C-alpha cells in the first residue's frame, strides 16, 4: 500500500495531518478576513464597493478556500512526474515567467508606488490584478522538485544539476529583483531549500549562500534607498525617512497593543498612521488590537501549521512529494517569519505579506494552492496512477 513510506506511518495518520493542515489554513484565512476588515476600516475608504480592500479580500479569501478544498484532491504525482522529464512543470514555469515578462509590457503591466509587480485584466471598472511573481515562486519550486527527483537525476553533479538549477534560479530572480526585492529573495531561499532537500550537496549550497550574502551586501549597500531600510531597522527613531517611519509606526502599534491589546477594531495606528496595514504590516495592526497575548495565539497557529506540514512532508510517499511539500512549507513559513520579523523591526522594512492573511488576491490563491499541494502529495498516489510511479 505505501511502498515508499520511509517513516512507516500509516496513511490514516497522514490523512489526519492533512485535514489538520487544511483546517489550520482555513483558520488563518478566516482570521485574515477579520483583520483586513479591521485594518481597512480607516482613512482611505470610499468609492466603488468593488475597489474596497476589505470587500475584495473577502472574495479572494472565499476563492482561496475553494481552491484549498478542491485542489488537494488532485493527484500531483501523476501530473508532474509522469514521463521521463517534468514537461508539465516546465510548461507551468514557462507560463509563469511569461506572465512575469508581461508586467513590463505597457498597457498590461501595472505599477503601484513605482514598482511594476502586477498585470491587470478585465474591464476598467472591475479589473483584477495578478501578481506573476507569486506564481513564479510556486512554479519554480515545483519544477525544481520534479526535475531533481526525476529517475535519471544525479543530484551530486555540479555541472549537470547544480549549475543549470542555479542559472534557472538566477533567471527567475533577475526578472523580479528590480521590482520586488523581497519576493526575489524569498524565491531564492525557497529554491535553495528545494535543492537542499532534494540532495544537492550542502557545500555547493553553502558556497552559494556565501556568494549570495556578498551579493546581497553589495546590492543593498550600493543603493541608498535599500541601505536606509537597513539603517532604519537598527534605529528607526534616529532618522526620518519612509522606511524608518514605517518601522516606528509598526513599533508604536505593537507598543500600544501591549500585553492584551486594545480590542478588536480599537486600533488607532491603522487609522492612516501605519501604511500598508492590510498587507505588509498586518501583524502590527493585529498586535495593536490583540496584544502580545493574541500574537502568541497567532504564532501558536503558525507553529501548529509548521508541525503539520513537516509531518506531511515526511510522510509523503514519493521523493517528489517530500521535496515539493518540504520546500513549499518552508517557503510559506519563512514568509510568515519574515513578515513578523519586519513588523517587529528585527528585519529591514520589506514588503512581505503574511501568507493566508494579508490582502492580495494572487498571494492568497497561490498560497492556498501550495498548501493544497502539500496535502495532496502526502497521500499515496491513487491506485490507477501508482503503476506509473512504481514504474519510475
Amino acid at each position, binding site marked *: 500500500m505505501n511502498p515508499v513510506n520511509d517513516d512507516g506511518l500509516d496513511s490514516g495518520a497522514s490523512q489526519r495531518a492533512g485535514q489538520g493542515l487544511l483546517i489550520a489554513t482555513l483558520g488563518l484565512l478566516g482570521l485574515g478576513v477579520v483583520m483586513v476588515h479591521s485594518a481597512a476600516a480607516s482613512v482611505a475608504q470610499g468609492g466603488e464597493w468593488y475597489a474596497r480592500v476589505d470587500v475584495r479580500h473577502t472574495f479572494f479569501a472565499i476563492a482561496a478556500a475553494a481552491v484549498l478544498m478542491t485542489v488537494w484532491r488532485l493527484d500531483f504525482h501523476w501530473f508532474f512526474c509522469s514521463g521521463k522529464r517534468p514537461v508539465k512543470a516546465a510548461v507551468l514555469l514557462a507560463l509563469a515567467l511569461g506572465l512575469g515578462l508581461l508586467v513590463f509590457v505597457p498597457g498590461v503591466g501595472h505599477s503601484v508606488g513605482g514598482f511594476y509587480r502586477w498585470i491587470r485584466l478585465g474591464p476598467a471598472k472591475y479589473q483584477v490584478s495578478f501578481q506573476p511573481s507569486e506564481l513564479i515562486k510556486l512554479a519554480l519550486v515545483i519544477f525544481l522538485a520534479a526535475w531533481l527527483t526525476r529517475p535519471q537525476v544525479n543530484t551530486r553533479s555540479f555541472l549537470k544539476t547544480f549549475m543549470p538549477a542555479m542559472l534557472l534560479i538566477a533567471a527567475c530572480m533577475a526578472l523580479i529583483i528590480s521590482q520586488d526585492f523581497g519576493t526575489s529573495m524569498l524565491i531564492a531561499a525557497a529554491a535553495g531549500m528545494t535543492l537542499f532537500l532534494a540532495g544537492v550537496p550542502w557545500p555547493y549550497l553553502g558556497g552559494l549562500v556565501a556568494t549570495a550574502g556578498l551579493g546581497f551586501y553589495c546590492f543593498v549597500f550600493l543603493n541608498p534607498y535599500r541601505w536606509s531600510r537597513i539603517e532604519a531597522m537598527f534605529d528607526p527613531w534616529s532618522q526620518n525617512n519612509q522606511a524608518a517611519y514605517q518601522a516606528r509606526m509598526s513599533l508604536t502599534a505593537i*507598543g500600544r497593543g501591549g500585553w492584551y491589546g486594545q480590542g478588536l477594531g480599537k486600533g488607532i495606528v491603522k487609522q492612516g498612521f501605519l501604511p500598508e496595514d492590510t498587507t505588509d504590516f498586518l501583524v502590527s495592526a493585529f498586535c495593536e488590537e490583540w496584544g502580545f497575548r493574541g500574537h502568541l495565539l497567532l504564532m501558536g497557529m503558525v507553529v501548529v501549521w509548521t508541525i503539520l506540514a*513537516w509531518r506531511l512532508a*515526511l510522510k509523503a510517499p514519493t521523493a517528489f512529494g517530500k521535496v515539493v511539500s518540504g520546500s513549499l512549507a518552508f517557503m510559506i*513559513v519563512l514568509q510568515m517569519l519574515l513578515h513578523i520579523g519586519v513588523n517587529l523591526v528585527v528585519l529591514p522594512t520589506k514588503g512581505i505579506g503574511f501568507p493566508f492573511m494579508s490582502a492580495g488576491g494572487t498571494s492568497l490563491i497561490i498560497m492556498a494552492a501550495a498548501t493544497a499541494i502539500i496535502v495532496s502529495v502526502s497521500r499515496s498516489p491513487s491506485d490507477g496512477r501508482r503503476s506509473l510511479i512504481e514504474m519510475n
Partner: protein
Amino acid sequence: MHKQGIKAWKHSLVFILLILCIGGLAVRHYLLVRKDGQMLGELARRQQQMTIIDPGRPGGIFIASGRSCTPIAISRQAPLCFVDPSLAPADQLDEICRKLGGILGKEAHELRGAITRRPNSRFVVLAKQISGEQAKAVKALNLQCVGVVHEWRREYPANELCATVVGFPPAPGVANTGAGIELTYKDLLAAKDGMMLSLTDAIRRPVEPLDDRRVLPEDGSNIVLYIDAPVQEALEKALAAAVEKHQAQWANGIVVDPKTGAIVAMASAPSFNPADYSSATPANRTNRAITVPYEPGSVAKPIFAAAAVEAGIVTYETKIFCENGTYVMPRAGRVSDHGEAHGWLTVRDGIVFSSNICMAKIGQMTGNERLYEIATSFGLGRKSGIDLPGEDAGIVRDLHKWNTYSTPRVPFGQEVSTTSLQLVMAFSALVNGGELLQPRVVNRVLDSQQRVVWQSERTVVRRVISEGVSAQTRSVLADVVERGTGKMARMNRWTSFGKTGTAQVPGPRGYEPGAYTGSFIGGSPVGEPRVVCLISVFKPKRAGYYGSTVAAPYVKDVLEQAMVYYNVPPDRPEGQERRR
C-alpha cells in the same frame, strides 16, 4: 527511484530551525512590550490624541415682558465653512472653489485667493454664518479639505431695543472695548469652554472620543434686567420722536420705579444696533443717560426747595417776594425770571411757575454750606454706583470754590452738572417717601440651568427728607402739571406730577447762545408713584426749546404707556378729564 534518497533529518533540521525562529520572534515581542511598551504607548498617545475645544454657550441677557422674559442678547450656533489648504489637492483647487462658490454665493477666484494666501494654515474660513442648507450642501460635496463647524454667534433679536444698556461684548484681546451689560458682566456671561479628547487618524480627524477625559462645557450665566420691554419701547419711541421733531443733537431718558430703584427703561437717541456696533459713531454708542453730565436747570429746583422745607428754613406756603422779574444782588449779579414778572409767590407757586428769583432767595436763606450738603446728600456730583460702565460723576464743585454767585444759582440748577441718572434718582427720593435708593439695572442672575444665583435687592443709600415733606413735595409737583409749567404732561386718566427744566448749555466762554437742554422729569400716579420718568433733549433747534415743549409731552406718552402696562387703576375723577 531517486538515487540519493530523501533524508528525513534535513526536513527535521529545517522545520526545527523555523520553529526556533518563531520562538525567537515571540521573545522579541515580549521584550519589546516589557521594555518599551510604556514609552511607545506614550508616543502613540501624543501622536494620536487631540484636544477638541467644546465651546460653551455664552449667557443671554433678558428683559422683562409681562410675566415672561424677552431675550435681548443671546448666543446661537451658526455654521461656518472652512478649508484646510494642506489637504486641498492643487490640481483640483479650481473645481473645488467653483463648487463652493456656487453654494456659498461667492466668486470662485475670491475663495481661491483666500486659500492660496495662507497655504500653510490648516483653517481658512471661507464663509461665516451660512445657512443650514448651505452647510448641508457643503457636506454633501464630501471633500476632505472642506469642513463645516459651528461657532457661537451673538445675536440681538430685538435689534436696537435697549442697545445702550445691553451694549456689546469686548473684542477679545483688545483693551477698552465693549459697552453696557455685555462689558460689566462679561465674566458672568462668558462660558467655560469644555474639552474633548479624541483619538485621531493620520489626517487629524477625530476617530474615537475618550469619554473619561472629557470636560463638559459650562454655559454662561443669564442676566435678567429690570428693563420692561413695553416701557423701554415707549421711551425709545418718545426719544426718537423728540429728536426728530425738534432737530435735537440727542435725547436721553430714564424710567425708574421710585419705590425700588429699579431702572425699568433707559435709552438714548440716536442709538445703534449692537449686532453692527462698529458702524455706529462712538457718541451714539454711549449710554448718555449715565455718561453725559449737563446742567440740570429748573428740574433741580424741587430738590433744594424740599430740602429747605425739611430743614425748616421755609415751608411750601411761605411767601417770597419775586422782585417782579428782575433781582439784582450785591456781588451776585442779576437773576431774572425769563421774561415773567412775579410779585409775592408762595414757595409752592415758585416751583409751580418755576421762578428763579424765588429759588435764589431760598438759596440765600440756606447758605452755601447747607446747599452743598443738600446737593451731595441727594447724590448729585457723585457716582451712583450703577452696574453699567462709563458712569460720570457730574460736577458739584468743592465747597471752598463756591462764592456769592453760587448761593442764588445752585438752587435753580446752575453751577452744578448732573447725569440723567443722578437727577432721576434724586427725584425719586423726593416722591417715594424720602429715601435715596441705589439704582439697579440687573434684576437677577441665573445659571445655565436657570437657577437663580443672585437676586438684586432694594438698597437705601440714605434718607434725604421725611415722609411728610415727600408727600407735600408730591402735591407741589402735581400742581406743576395741573396749573404750572408742566401742563403738557397732564394725562386724562391718571394724576401725574413733574417739573420742567430748561438749562443753557455752558460753552467755553459763558453760556452758549441759543443752546439749551430741555428736560422734564415726571411721575405718576401722585398718591403712590409707580414710575418716575426723565427725558432730556439736548440742543433742540426747532419747535421750541423749553422743557415744557420738547420733553414734557414725551414724558406724558411714556407715563401713559407705563400706566397701561403696569395696570395702574386710573385715579383721576371722571369729571376732571380734560379734552384736548
